[in-house]
């Protein structure tokens, strides 16, 4: 018998989950934790990338085609832009997924929108990555 008050029992230490369930790290939805963690990881990665992108845009406002492509062709800028594309698109897919799941209640329409959103944003990310590589390589 556990004598602790219910408010002090930690779900990750107490008896609510068996050891195998805890090791798998899955909740009742079976994949929610992974989604939640990746959303936070991409969010943290986005913090420096956002500042870098804002800083770069300030520097490129008056740049013509030659100056802009020279800037993007530099390895450091190309790598950071590729990381930005992957991180932002990944974070956007996870965020839009939650918004669609929360606000669309028709099951078939929700599935169509979820797949459509992921297809379009993946294509967008691939287009962005291709453009960076074409300029930089």
């Amino acid at each position: 018998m556990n004598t602790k008050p219910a408010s002090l029992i930690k779900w990750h230490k107490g008896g609510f989950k068996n050891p195998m369930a805890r090791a798998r790290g899955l909740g009742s939805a079976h994949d929610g934790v992974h989604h939640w963690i990746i959303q936070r990881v991409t969010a943290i990665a986005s913090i420096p990338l956002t500042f870098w992108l804002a800083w770069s845009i300030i520097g490129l406002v008056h740049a013509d085609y030659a100056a802009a492509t020279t800037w993007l062709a530099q390895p450091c800028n190309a790598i950071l832009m590729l990381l930005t594309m992957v991180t932002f698109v990944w974070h956007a897919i996870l965020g839009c997924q939650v918004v669609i799941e929360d606000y669309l209640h028709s099951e078939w329409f929700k599935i169509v929108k979820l797949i459509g959103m992921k297809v379009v944003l993946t294509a967008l990310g691939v287009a962005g990555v291709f453009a960076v590589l074409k300029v930089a390589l």
Partner: protein
Amino acid sequence: MAGNTNISETSERPLSPHLQIYKWQITMAMSIMHRATGVALTFGLFILVWWLLAMASGPEAYDLFRKCVSHPVGVFVAMGLSFCMFYHLCTGIRHLFLDSGKFFKIPEIYASGYTALVCAIALTASFWLAIVF
């Protein structure tokens, strides 16, 4: 989550109070705005990729892109998106603190909310001052 959502839609039992019942307060407004700016930024990604594709396509495509973003409508959209970006950044950092269990006392959650809002406005203003000057 899935499958039986239409039970609550069709049955006669009372539902929990919905949006229109609640008084507007900064906590809910900021949370809703965080989502709205996130969706807006997803559309903003299309402009970012347009910029990259214009660089990959050649000088004519790049000039067209520059013409569009320097048009008053383009500048207006860019201003809106830049605020969305800094707002989502600041409230996103606040959400990371909330996720780790910080700022849950009422005065803290209000103070952190106003701090994030002020930081977002300050960052947007500095961004545009740096562009203009």
